């Protein structure tokens, strides 16, 4: 007998056993497939029926149990009565497998024949729920429950019990839950349950409530979700999960608390911050906010921001709306003008804050008034602008560059200086501008600057301009540091000193020229300071005194003077300062100088004082008079020779003249004598004429004698004589009475003593000379007068004055009256007065001429009285 047949034929208990045994493979398979089929709720629901059906189907062929899930699908199978039991069993099993597989495939491909839409969805939901269920089972805070509503008891509630803190064995049902719930949440739960159980609804159960855990009395938040399944209008089952969301809620609570704290924080924040609800009503505002934007109020809570500030720009309102959608906005540099016309610069941020349920509760605005800052920034920028302008526009060239040498910035003046534009300069290096010859020296300085050896330096060197011209510049270079470690820059302040250099050069050249002139001068030029220290001496000075410059400069000028003068020199200087009167300032003066070899020589010194840069110096111009002295001596000699020659000539002339004179005299005498012896004397007039002729000859002789006496260097024949007697004699001879018309002679010989030691002939010559001069001076004047007077001068001398009232002496003439070979007379030999001077001086007297009181001329001479002469 086959298995099937056996089953057929077997007794009912045996058939059952066989059926069960035949179902075993199905059970095993089902168990094996279950994990994969978990989310298919319909399967879950129908499982027991399926199982039953499968058994039945196995036992009673022809009974089909179909399901949309992955089931064993048993199709009606033809009775296999004809086959053996074994065959029939095998066939049964194979059929089951195939059908099940086929059903699975069908299910998976969404073709669910015979299934209603709603059911499918429900099944779907069930499937999903069962998946979740499975997942949450893994979590400790999540418990799934399966509530049989009819029975009012849930299955698989270990986890629920754990969460709720139920005693093991406690029945889990809504009542149990309600018992643990906090009183104030009970209504909420009940309402949720009612809503869920309502067959007209969607059966969704959502509730969040607090419980007090029976196990430890702790307050816990529970969140429950469930899905109610209905059958024939009745809720039959709810599957759901519940979670212990205490931590979440605590967080939320904390968040809500922290929101309160935020409020406090907002109110107390040192910044301007305010919290608004969704309608922009103030919930909180910080002190700073209230002060700035509060418009004088103490509190803004409850006020509408837009009402408070009617002038809020629309763009900001748009931003608020965006924030309410969850956007974050900020602006670091916004600008608005309030109703009072006050300008504000604002840095603000606007962001949403979340409420307890995770929605956007409103807007938080934080605003930082940066007007002051802005103004400061503006001021800074302005000052930077000014500085920048100053930098750019400065009259002095500024150039900044990296420490490495590349130029970063240059101002206009620098550009003008160098001829390059700012842009060109920025691509250049400092060193590119410097003249090749100056580069080396400049590099040395720059190195030291970079190394930090020197904080800065000032140097003068040459730049080569863009156009190739070379200019001199004076450069101040320094190193500056950026903020913190922000790098180092070299800053140069540059001035064009070409002009100064040129004038320095000119000055130097001028100095060189002056030095050349000084050194080329033939006179010595020596300058000294107020202490007498030699400041400079020229080449002529070196030659004249025999020193080298270095031996003299810096030492006292005394070294150039003979002893006596040297000692007196300091006195002279002191005296000059004291009295302001310089003995030799400006005036040339003959002094003596001392050469290096000690020899003393005559010098002519002219001294000039000068103020040079506020210092007083004396400049002396020294002429060596040795030559001049020699020259003068020579001239004197020549003059003397000339005079000697004249004397000789005069002597020779006199000698020659004497001969005929003598002869003439003798002839005349003879003639006279002859006549006197003649018997008759009819020729008395002849006699008279002859006598007079004889007188004239004698007079001529006297003149010649005197002339010879004038120029002869022979000794004077001094004897005791009466000056008055001589005066009378000479006066009678020169100005004979009755012989000169219109000329009056007055003799006032008042000296008490007139005995002098004199050469009668010579002094007679002097008197003749003076009287003749007086006579000639008055020649052209009408009614003229000549006077001769004598008187004692009280010093053992007798003074004789010969005066006339002629035109007088011209100043220029007076100087040289007694010089030989000068004459005011057209026919004068010019020796008269000079010889008179020699004669008088040889007699130890003085002779001089001056203008008389009331016009005219007075010549005076003095002679020592014989009584005043002392014997040795």
């Amino acid at each position, binding site marked *: 007998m086959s298995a099937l047949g056996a089953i057929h034929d077997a007794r009912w208990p045996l058939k059952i056993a066989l059926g069960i045994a035949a179902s075993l493979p199905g059970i095993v398979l089902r168990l094996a497939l279950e994990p994969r089929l978990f989310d298919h709720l319909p399967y879950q629901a129908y499982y027991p029926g399926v199982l039953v059906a499968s058994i039945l189907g196995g036992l009673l062929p022809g009974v089909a149990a179909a399901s949309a899930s992955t089931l064993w699908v048993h199709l009606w199978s033809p009775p296999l009565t004809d086959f053996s039991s074994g065959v029939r069993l095998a066939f049964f099993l194979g059929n089951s497998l195939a059908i099940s597989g086929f059903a699975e495939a069908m299910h998976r491909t969404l073709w669910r024949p015979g299934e209603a839409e709603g059911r499918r969805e429900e099944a779907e939901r069930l499937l999903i729920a069962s998946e979740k269920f499975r997942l949450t089972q893994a979590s400790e805070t999540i418990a799934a429950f399966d509530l049989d509503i009819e029975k009012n008891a849930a299955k698989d509630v270990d986890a629920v019990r754990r969460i709720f803190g139920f005693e093991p064995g406690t029945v889990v049902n809504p009542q149990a839950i309600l018992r643990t719930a906090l009183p104030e949440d009970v209504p909420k739960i009940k309402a949720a349950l009612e809503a869920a159980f309502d067959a007209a609804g969607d059966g969704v159960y959502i509730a969040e409530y607090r419980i007090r855990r029976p196990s430890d009395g702790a307050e816990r938040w529970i969140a429950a979700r469930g899905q109610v399944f209905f059958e024939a209008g009745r809720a039959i089952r709810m599957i759901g999960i519940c979670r212990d969301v205490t931590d979440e809620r605590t967080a939320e609570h904390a968040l809500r608390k922290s929101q309160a704290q935020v409020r406090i924080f907002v109110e107390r924040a040192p910044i301007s911050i305010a919290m608004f609800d969704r309608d922009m009503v103030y919930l909180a505002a910080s002190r700073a906010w209230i002060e700035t934007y509060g418009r004088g109020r103490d509190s803004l809570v409850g006020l509408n921001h837009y009402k408070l500030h009617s002038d809020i720009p629309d763009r900001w309102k748009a931003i608020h709306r965006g924030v309410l959608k969850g956007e974050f906005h900020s602006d670091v540099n916004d600008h608005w003008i309030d109703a009072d016309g006050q300008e504000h610069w604002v840095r603000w941020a606007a962001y949403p804050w979340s409420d307890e349920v995770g929605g956007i509760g409103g807007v938080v605005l934080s605003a930082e008034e940066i007007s002051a800052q802005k103004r400061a920034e503006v001021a800074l920028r302005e000052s930077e602008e000014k500085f920048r302008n100053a930098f750019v526009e400065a009259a002095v060239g500024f150039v900044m560059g990296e420490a490495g040498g590349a130029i970063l910035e240059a101002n206009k003046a620098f550009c003008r200086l160098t001829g390059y534009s700012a842009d060109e300069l920025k691509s250049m290096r400092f060193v590119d501008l410097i003249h090749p010859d100056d580069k080396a020296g400049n590099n040395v300085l720059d190195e030291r600057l970079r190394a930090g050896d020197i904080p800065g330096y000032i140097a003068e060197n040459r730049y080569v301009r863009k156009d190739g011209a070379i200019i001199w510049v004076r450069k101040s270079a320094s190193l500056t540091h950026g903020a913190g470690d922000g790098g180092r820059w070299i800053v140069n302040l540059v001035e064009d000193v070409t002009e100064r250099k040129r004038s320095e050069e000119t000055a130097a050249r001028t100095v060189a020229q002056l030095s050349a002139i000084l050194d080329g001068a033939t006179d010595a030029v020596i300058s000294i300071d107020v202490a007498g220290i030699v400041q400079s001496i020229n080449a002529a000075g070196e030659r004249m005194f025999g020193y080298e410059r270095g031996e003299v400069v810096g030492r006292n000028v005394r070294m150039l003077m003979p002893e006596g003068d040297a000692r007196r020199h300091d006195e002279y200087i002191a005296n000059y300062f004291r009295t302001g009167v310089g003995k030799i300032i400006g005036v040339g003066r003959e002094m003596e100088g001392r050469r290096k070899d000690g020899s003393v020589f005559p010098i002519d010194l002219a001294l000039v004082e000068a103020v040079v840069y506020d210092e007083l110096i004396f400049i002396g111009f020294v002429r060596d008079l040795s030559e001049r002295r020699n020259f003068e001596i020579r001239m004197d000699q020549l003059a003397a020779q000339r005079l000697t020659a004249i004397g000789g000539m005069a002597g020779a002339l006199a000698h020659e003249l004497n*001969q005929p004179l003598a002869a003439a005299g*003798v002839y005349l005498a003879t003639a006279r004598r002859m006549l006197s012896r003649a018997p008759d004397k009819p020729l008395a007039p002849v006699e008279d004429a002859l006598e007079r002729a004889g007188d004239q000859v004698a007079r001529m002789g006297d003149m010649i004698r005197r002339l010879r006496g004038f120029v002869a260097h022979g000794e004077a024949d001094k004897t005791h004589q009466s000056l008055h007697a001589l005066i009378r004699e000479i006066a009678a001879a020169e100005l004979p009475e009755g012989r000169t018309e219109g000329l009056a002679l007055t003799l006032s010989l008042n000296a008490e003593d007139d005995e002098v030691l004199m050469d009668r002939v010579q002094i007679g010559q002097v008197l003749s000379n003076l009287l003749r001069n007086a006579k000639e001076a008055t020649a052209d004047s009408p009614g003229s007068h000549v006077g001769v007077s004598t008187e004692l001068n009280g010093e053992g001398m007798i003074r004789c004055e010969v005066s006339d009232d002629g035109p007088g002496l011209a100043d220029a003439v007076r100087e040289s009256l007694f010089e030989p070979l000068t004459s005011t007379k057209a026919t004068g030999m010019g020796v008269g007065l000079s010889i008179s001077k020699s004669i008088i001086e040889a007699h130890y007297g003085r002779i001089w001429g001056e203008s008389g009181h009331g016009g005219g001329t007075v010549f005076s001479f003095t002679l020592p009285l014989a009584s005043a002469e002392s014997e040795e």
Partner: protein
Amino acid sequence: MSDHQIVHVIDDDDALRDSVRLFLVNEGLGVRTYGSANEFLAALDAPHAGCVVTDVRMPGMSGMELLAHIAAKGLSLPVIVITGHADVPLAVRAMKQGAIDLLEKPFKAEELIAAVRRGLALGKDSHLNGTPVEVALARRAMLSVRENEVLDRLIKGQPNKIIAYEMGISPRTVEVHRANVMKKTQAGSLSELVRMFLNADRN
């Protein structure tokens, strides 16, 4: 007459020679003129007395040389020297050489005739020219020591400077002494002074 005293006039200047001759002839004297000293010496007769009037500066033998010659020959011929240029040394030398007088041209004719007459009178006794010795000595005694010394030097013909240097005194002092000597001795001129004391010295 053999005693006729002749005046010999020697001068190289024709006019002067002629004028003197004319003058002396008019005074009744015999005159012979010579153009030079040599001419005179050549024409000289020993026994003739008279006197000589001679110039000093002449070509050939000068007047001073003639004097020396006459003195050397021991001729008793008084000589009057006329000169265009007279100074003390010349006067002293002339006196020492035996001249009895020295006249400076242009001289007064009266001076000349007086000197000639004196010379002719002296003749052999030319040496007796001058002041008597006693008088000279007496006058000398009135001088101080210094003045005496100065006198001696003056007579020697020393110029003042030399006298001063040798006596160790200043020239001015010499002048003072000299003036005093002249005053005290009443000498009219240096030549007179010389004449005065030269004879005294000689004697």
